[in-house]
């Protein structure tokens, strides 16, 4: 039986344009598909991934154009709805950045920093990305 894994994601937008996704969300999605049991906590700048309606234009260099630029909100929704990976966002990190809860995609779960230790004990592995 797969170990339960909690994944705290803090590094945000690191290579999303070049990879057309977040490499850690991608990795967890692939591992979930391979039988893993994963949960995500977005903290720090990564809470931005949960803001609905975001997206950067694709990169253009001369005649070369990127056609599949990433949409992180879409990928978070995909985690929740299609991959059945719960996604938490740290409330204090949202507040520090002036992000209101009604700006977030549906399905994400706000969690306070003080509640994190209680969440940790539910998992076999806690990873900080």
């Amino acid at each position, binding site marked *: 039986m797969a170990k339960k894994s909690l994944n705290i994601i803090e590094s945000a937008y690191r290579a999303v*344009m070049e990879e057309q996704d977040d490499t850690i969300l991608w990795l967890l999605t692939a591992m979930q598909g391979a039988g893993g049991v994963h949960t995500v906590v977005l903290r720090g700048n990564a809470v931005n991934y949960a803001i609905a309606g975001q997206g950067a234009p694709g990169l253009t*260099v001369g005649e070369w154009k990127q056609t599949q630029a990433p949409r992180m909100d879409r990928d978070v929704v995909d985690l929740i709805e299609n991959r059945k990976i719960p996604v938490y966002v740290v409330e204090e990190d949202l507040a520090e950045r002036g992000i209101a809860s009604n700006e977030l995609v549906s399905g994400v779960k706000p969690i306070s920093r003080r509640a994190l230790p209680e969440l940790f004990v539910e998992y076999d592995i806690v990873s900080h990305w």
Partner: protein
Amino acid sequence: MMSRKTLTFALMDAPYESAKLTTAFRILDAAARRGHDINVFAYEGAAALAFTRQSPHPNPVHGKNLAEENHPTTKDQVAALLAEATKNGGKVDWVNCGMCVDERGVGEFVPGTRRGSPADFQAFLDASDNTLVIPTK
């Protein structure tokens, strides 16, 4: 009319690991569109940017085949930068740090880029109107 300048950029990040290269390519593209002469010193991981054996891939997690994913490669971006500069009357002197290339086994470059050394970067610094270093961290 804006005068033509010589601009030098030092890049250090490896492809597919950083947002900084996307920003760098946006700036390089803007400079090429304005016809400026561009020097690039591709140092450390950035020596792989012009490696011609990079391959796009399908993405099963995205549910997309090779064509649908249309995965970007930095070698294509480098080639497009060279073409854009030429089209607008500028030129790009893209130097791949030779020792960095050897360490990484990425010695097959996009045509129009070349192998070089820190001496090339020094020459770029001395001859340029301005230099922007985009370091890795």
